């Protein structure tokens, strides 16, 4: 069970309090109708799925309830950092 530092609660909490939210920094277009089918496909489905540094979303669902972002190494599962939603990509 991972220990995840919640940037809002400012403490490390057990994974079972959190819900994984997939890759981070994939913003929904302001006006999707302007997107081509290819662009829309990319927004919906294309993911970087890297081996190594991964920017991802978590929600402290059973804690403060907030979504936030994290950088985790997908080979070691070690978190490099976590930061609040809306903050710039780290």
């Amino acid at each position: 069970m991972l220990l995840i530092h919640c940037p809002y609660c400012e403490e490390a909490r057990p994974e079972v309090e959190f819900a994984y939210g997939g890759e981070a920094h994939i913003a929904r277009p302001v006006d999707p109708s302007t997107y081509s089918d290819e662009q829309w496909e990319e927004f919906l489905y294309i993911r970087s799925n890297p081996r190594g540094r991964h920017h991802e979303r978590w929600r402290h669902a059973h804690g403060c309830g907030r979504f936030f972002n994290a950088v985790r190494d997908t080979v070691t599962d070690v978190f490099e950092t976590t930061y609040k939603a809306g903050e710039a990509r780290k």
Partner: protein
Amino acid sequence: MVEIAEIAVSAAELKLGTEPVQGDGVRLAHAGPKARYSLRARDAKALADVIGRALPGKIGDTEGAIACLGPDEWYALLPAGTEMPRGEGLAVSVVDVSSRALGLVLEGPGALAVLSSGCPLDLAKMGVGRATRTVFETVEIQVWREGEERWHVEVWRSFATWLWHAFVAAMHGAK
């Protein structure tokens, strides 16, 4: 030859306890009726003005029976019947959830162990007067440390029966 004995009690047959249960150094009881409000706002001050009460500023702190659960979320646990203004039209959310949850109280030197049987938090490090949302195994709860050895647990109504018996199982060493 496989022969599977019937289970003694089924999940459907579990009943929510009504009388307190005394275990080895720990007592499980109902907290009794409460008024409960889910309070939300970006601006704590605006919300405080609406409800006319002070709000704890830091997540996990409590003040006047109001806990700060998140950056824009507070939870009030007040005497039954307490009313609260809704702040119509303002950038706040006041929702009466008095009936949504039940309060269970674990008290005694053994209370920490019972809670820790299914809650993965390091509760020993949780100060008196702190409160947080967390889980007991798969069920979401709120834990309020009301005293060194007194813990108030908020749980949604329909999960209370399971939680009550999970506590009892932990109290009796899963007997």
